[in-house]
């Protein structure tokens, strides 16, 4: 019988205990706090209306994508959207497996 390396039930109990502790800490804060400037939304240091504050999907991880530009450019070329290319890759991989099987026999 397989003994699982971790116990999810214990993990959940731990999570609940931590959540209760966090709630107690939060509850011990000022009850009459009304908020201030630190709660206002800022975009690149500029104050902006709340409705315009949403960052769209394209802008997230811009730095990650920019630093891997070379990789992504080559990947975009591969993902051409042309069915002929898809079939070519398929046939190429079949040929590689096929050749490898026969090479293994020669090596053995």
């Amino acid at each position, binding site marked *: 019988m397989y003994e699982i390396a*971790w116990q*999810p039930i214990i993990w959940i109990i731990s999570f609940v205990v931590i959540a209760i502790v966090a709630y107690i800490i939060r509850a011990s804060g000022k009850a009459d706090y009304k908020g201030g400037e630190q709660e206002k939304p800022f975009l690149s240091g500029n104050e902006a209306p709340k409705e315009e504050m949403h960052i769209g999907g394209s802008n997230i991880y811009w730095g990650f994508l920019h630093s891997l530009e070379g990789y992504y450019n080559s990947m975009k070329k591969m993902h051409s959207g042309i069915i002929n290319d898809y079939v070519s890759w398929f046939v190429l991989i079949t040929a590689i497996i096929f050749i490898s099987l*026969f090479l293994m026999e020669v090596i053995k």
Partner: protein
Amino acid sequence: MNWLITHSPALLILLPLLAAFLMPIIDKINKKARNIFAILIFIIVEILVIILAFDIIKNGMHVYAIGEKNPLQTIPSQAAVPIRIVLQIDAMGIFMGLISATVCLAASLYSLAYIEEGKGKGKFYTLLLLILVGMLGMEFTGDIFNLFVFYEILSIASAALIAYSRKGEASEGAFKFLVISSISALFILFSVALFYGQYDLLNIAALAKNMKYTHLDKIALALLVSAFAMKCGSVPMHFWCPDAYSVAPSSITATLVAGSQASLYALFRVCFTLYGVKLDLQLIGGALIIFGLLSMFVGVTMAIPQKDIKRLMAYHAISQTGYMLLGVGAGLYLLGKPEFDSYGIRAMEGGIFHIINHAMYKGLLFLTAGAIFYRLKTRNLNEMGGLAHKMKYTSIFFIIGALAIAGVPPFNGFASKLIIYESVYKISPILSIIAMLVSILTLASFVKVFHSAFMGPKIHDVEEVPKSMLIGMCVLTFVIIFFGLFPGFIVNNLVHPAAMALAEQAKYLQAIGG
């Protein structure tokens, strides 16, 4: 009850097949009756699969010779080899059957509201039932030619449903899917011809017994491995996946994932059962590991820049397939070696457990993407935002699916990934490191989706999706949470027998006799 269990292998294929052909007639008579009939069939199939699963886990493999008076007699009295169509269901087959039936049930419930009336809903359910027939047939058949037939049924029904909306991009996705599926089907058919020409046999067990691993068998192996690896979305043959997954109706995308996993099953069946230890285990096992690593890395890195929510999820489907290929590939690599019993089988269990986990959470994620599309009529993440204000249940389902796919405890994705990390580490620590890195990138990618679609100020004035769609998502969420909380129970009762069924080729061969 005994009669039902004996005949359930045939019933599980016949019932949805007959229902599929009855569907257009019932559709003409009454629309409500059509919906009830479709859901009823999916529920009956699910119950039958569960009953059969219990029996297989308890009493072992089922064989069923179609057309024979005594369906348990696989070899007719006048013959020396099996000549009829034989269904052969072991723990691995029924494990896959459970996945297919559950995903199709969730998809059918979801489609009640998601697919609009008056847009060929009757045809939609006909094709959905045929997809189920194709998947169950592939998973239950013990005959290589019928594997090809069911593969074709699955492919053609899937292509028709990808093009369901009849819009330009849907037709393009379906066309690409159909072209690539047809070529892979021809590869399979050619392999079948090579086997039949050499051995006069089509039964998988009989073929495996007589397998001489000739040059022709090697050609057949190359064709089968590439065909099924392509259909399960392995890099670098994955290009069709984002094109097809993103344009299909969301309920169909969830079933396409299950369909890809049926191909993954066929790949494992060919390697472990048809060829077994006669195979160049290190070469083919190593190839599966390389396919797995490439799929994991390319899938997740290509997901990150996507703006189309379903295209992003499609790349994640490729990435997650990589984990399965890595786990089971590691098992194949070690098959027959002393290390197999210690960590080879464990890697296989991780890979196989990940198949069912992936089907559930990826199915759920595609359904949540469908829920967003249902309300906003866009898949573009840049046009979304603040949906959690109104679509609270969809948001919760998405969070659960996203945490599960990212391998965050205590969800099911973590349980299977942990087994994979532990076991493949012993082959090479690099494998585990790449697998963990991919998990981190997966989490990053879904944080992006959650932020873009659900967080932020209320931009769209939308309502929560209809109840039937929520029920469809709820079915999969329940399975995800249950599997996450009781992974030991699932591994011991479902996954371990499935892994052993693949690894123990001799048992599969003995069941046929002759």
